[in-house]
Every structure is written in structure tokens, then in C-alpha cells.
């Protein structure tokens, strides 16, 4: 759509600008402030420059949390994206079952995040939870509050349960936009199932899948509540992801300087990802 140049449109954006700036700029400046200062209480602060940044960037604790975060995000992407696409491909394309599938699949997406954690907490309990009891009954030694491996397994299964539907819904929306004529043409050419997927369905899903990957990447990068309720970051520090560690430092130990420096590094990573998201989605939009 060709848009008219009109700088008075700024007035329409003003309320949004004011509300979001109030919530984003002031807190962000507070964080920047803390990140360059040292305090010994009594609200007396000393300028410290980049000391906290150096400390955080060189601390093993941060490296470990970041490594766990990347491992978590990588694993869930590897599982959720192919699984989501596979489910979207096998979903009925029309008929009454479409609505049933969509509604049931979307249900986990709308559950409060801490309830998701609580549901899995109960579901996976080794003595009275269905999952924990079944696994132990099958001969696995499973106890997610004591074993790091079991905790990771539960955390990843929980995220797959919670968010795969998002990939399914996006991929399905992409598939529905393919006109029937494409499939008929493929049939006339007697194209194989794989060829249909590779040359018709995958190209049409490319855009939605890009969005799905980026959304899952970013949202899993910020995940806090679900693993916190499920494991509290334990056993030990084995499931302490980036934001859990951040909240531990900031609100638990009240180490404002390092926490603020860590916040800013964290925020810069997210900013970079947002920029990738923006350029990719907008570039596609200009093409279409």
C-alpha cells in the first residue's frame, strides 16, 4: 500500500509512545545507572565505569548460565520445529475436526506460565505423578528434584508440551494459504509426497517458519516462570537459566551492579535478535 507522507501522524502515536517510554526508558536508565556504580548501602553510590561489565563477562557463573540457556534453546528448537511441521502436515485440511484440533492444541498456550510449571511439577512427581510413576514403573530411575538429567528432561518435555502448538498453528496457517490448484498440478505431474513437501509446501511455509523459529528462540531465551516453578533452578544450579540467575542475583542477593550489567548484556542479545526478526519479516513483506 502506498502511504502518504504526513508528520502529523506523530500525534496519533503519542499515547503509545508515552506509555511504552514510561515503562521502558525509565527502568532501562535505572539499570544503566546501577551497572556503572558501586554501593555500600545508605544510597551512596560511586562511579565504577565498566568494572561490572568486565566482571560479568569474565565470570564463570555467567558463562555457565549462558551455556545452559543456549543448550536449552537449541534443544527445544530442534524438537519443536520439526515436530510442529510434522503435526501441521498431518492435520485435516477441512471438516469439523479442524476446529477441534485447533482449539485443543491452543489450550496449553493460554495457561498461566506458573500454572504450566505447577502442572508439570505435579505430573512428574516420582511418587504420585503420572509421568514420574510411569517412568519409575518402566524401570527408569527418575526423580527430577534430585537428578540433573531428569530435571532437564522434564523441563524440555514441559516446553515441548507448552509451545509446540505455536509452531503447529503457524505452519498450519502457512499451509492453508496454498491454493488447491498447486496440489492438482502436482498430482498431474505425479509428484512424490517428498517433492510436494519440498517444492510446494516448504516454500509456502518459509515465512511463517521464520517467524516461528525467531519467536521460539526469543521467548525461550527469556523463559523464567515455568522452569522456576518446576525446579527452582535446581538440583544445584543445573537448570538455572539466564533469567533465573539474573533474578537470583538482583532480588536474592541484591547485588545491583553485577545484576544490572548482566541485564544490559542480556538485553543487548535480545535486541540483536529482535533486529533479525524485524528485518526478516519486513523484507518478506516488501516482497509480497
Amino acid at each position, binding site marked *: *500500500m502506498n*502511504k502518504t*507522507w*504526513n508528520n*502529523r*501522524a506523530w500525534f*496519533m*502515536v503519542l*499515547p*503509545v509512545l508515552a*506509555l*511504552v517510554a514510561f*515503562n*521502558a526508558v525509565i*527502568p*532501562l536508565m535505572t*539499570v544503566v545507572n546501577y551497572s556503572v556504580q558501586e554501593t555500600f548501602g545508605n544510597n551512596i553510590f560511586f562511579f565504577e565505569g565498566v568494572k561490572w561489565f568486565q566482571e560479568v563477562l569474565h565470570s564463570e557463573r555467567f558463562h555457565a548460565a549462558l551455556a545452559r540457556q543456549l543448550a536449552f534453546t537449541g534443544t527445544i528448537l530442534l524438537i519443536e520445529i520439526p515436530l510442529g511441521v510434522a503435526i501441521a502436515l*498431518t492435520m485435516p485440511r477441512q471438516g469439523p475436526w479442524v*476446529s477441534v484440533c485447533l*482449539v*485443543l*492444541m*491452543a*489450550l*496449553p*498456550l*493460554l495457561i*498461566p506460565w*506458573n*500454572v504450566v510449571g*505447577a*502442572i508439570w511439577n*505435579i505430573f512428574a512427581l516420582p511418587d504420585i505423578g*503420572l509421568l514420574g510413576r510411569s517412568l519409575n514403573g518402566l524401570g527408569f530411575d527418575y526423580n527430577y528434584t534430585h537428578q540433573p538429567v531428569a530435571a532437564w528432561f522434564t523441563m524440555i518435555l514441559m516446553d515441548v508440551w507448552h509451545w509446540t*502448538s505455536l509452531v*503447529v498453528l*503457524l505452519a*498450519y496457517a*502457512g499451509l492453508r494459504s496454498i491454493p488447491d490448484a498447486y496440489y492438482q498440478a502436482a498430482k498431474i505431474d505425479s509428484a512424490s509426497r517428498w517433492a510436494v513437501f519440498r517444492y510446494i509446501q516448504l516454500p509456502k511455509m518459509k515465512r*511463517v517458519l521464520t*517467524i516461528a523459529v525467531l*519467536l521460539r528462540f*526469543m521467548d525461550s*531465551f527469556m523463559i*523464567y*516462570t515455568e522452569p522456576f*516453578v518446576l525446579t527452582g533452578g535446581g538440583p544445584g544450579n543445573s537448570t538455572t537459566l539466564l*533469567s533465573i540467575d*539474573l*533474578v537470583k542475583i*538482583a*532480588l536474592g542477593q541484591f547485588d545491583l551492579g553485577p545484576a544490572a550489567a548482566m*541485564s544490559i548484556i*542480556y*538485553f543487548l542479545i*535480545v*535486541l540483536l535478535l529482535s533486529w533479525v*526478526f*524485524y528485518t526478516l*519479516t519486513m523484507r518478506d513483506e516488501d516482497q509480497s
Partner: protein
Amino acid sequence: MKRLNWLVPAFYIFFLMLPIYWLLNMSFKTTNEILGSFTLWPVNFTVENYVAIFTDPTWYNGYINSLAYVSINTVISVSAALPAAYAFSRYRFLGDKHLFFWLLTNRMAPPAVFALPFFQLYSAMNLFDTYIAVALAHCLFNIPLAVWILEGFMSGVPKEIDETAYIDGYSFSRFFVKIFMPLIASGIGVAAFFCFMFSWVELLLAKTLTSVAAKPIAAVMTRTASTSGYELGLLAAAGALTIIPGAVVIYFVRNYIAKGFALGRV
């Protein structure tokens, strides 16, 4: 092979429903049954957990508090986003693309980064532990979401409609309310739904900004789980009740839900 295709979604849905079934199962059991035996369905069926929630003010106030700030937030987010989304979809102006991107970064901002500064900001303004504090804080990610979704819907309305209305002598405000808003009614509904949902599911900021008077139900649950022993039945019942708002409205937005989660970009 084609005939067995339905098995994949069926298995997936079965997997999705299992933990929810277990939650419901727990919520209808007595504490003795939960701790004393392992049963696949409630043997001594009881609704006492639900009765306990609906008769204890700390519990049901949690729901009222959550609904209160979620509703306020939805109203603020959608009404502020409407004119902004119109501006983004119809006009080019100085810095529009940068502004649109900046909004997105706030949707992607990790709440953990903002927890402490938000606490200080809203305490300094004497808004700590009020509905309005949580409602305003959730604007951080809900306004960008609403702007992006509404912009997506508005761009689907041909510009000729605006121009015809102006030629017919409509003022901007009359045109916007009488003609334009009915045209994007479904978009407004979807945006409102998503603001409601994201404010409903968020806990970290809501918990940080409240202590007693505006404590959300989700935080009440956390407290129960940690302090007063492990009342699993009660916890399960409270959890089951928080699923209801989503389950009720999901049917109406089923065709738009992908669009909403992808910020209007599908």
C-alpha cells in the same frame, strides 16, 4: 499411509491432555488420597478443594485481582494502540520504521531485566501493590503486541474507504468510530484477546509489583505451594480454575490465534 495420518495429531493431542487431566484428577481428590495412594481417577470424589477456594478471601480475591488488572491493561493497551496502528498503516512519517522496531524490542524485552527497576519506579510513585501498577507495567509488552496485530488487520482495509469517507464529508473522528472500527472489529477483538491472555499468563512482573492488596491468583498459588505445607489438591484446583478463561474464549479466536502469536505477521 495417508489413512493413518490422523494418528499424529491424535497422539499429540493425547499428550497435551495428559498433564491437564492429571491436574483435574488431583483437584477432585482428598489430600489423603493424593498422598496415600496412586489412583488414575478420583476414588473418593470431592469438590472440597474448590469449595475451599471459593470460601477463602485470600484465594478468590486473587482471581478478582488478576481479572481487575488484566481488564484495565486490555482497555489501556487497545485504546492507545488503535490510533497508533492507524498511523503506522496509513502514513509515513519521520522515524516511523525506527519507532515500529523500537516497539517490537519491548515485546521481546526479558521481564527479568525489568523486575527490579519496575519495583523501584512504581514504589516511588506510590503505586506499589495497586491494580494500576500491574496494568501499566504489562503495557510494556501488550501495547507493542496490540499495535502490531491491529496494524496487520488495518493494512487489509483498502485506503479508498478512508478517502471516500472524507469526500462524503466525514470528520476523522466520526469516520474512525462509525466506519473504520466496525470494519476491523475482528482485529480489535483479537488484539484485546491477546492483551488479555498475555497479561493473564505473565507472573514475574505481577508478583514483583504486588504484596497483599493486588496479589494475583498465580502468586497466591506460589505462596501456598511453599509455605502451608504441600496442599496439592488445593493447588491443582486453583490451577484448573486459571485455565478456564483461556478455554472459554479460545473457540472464538481459533482462526486468528496464529496471527496473534506472530504479532499480526501471518
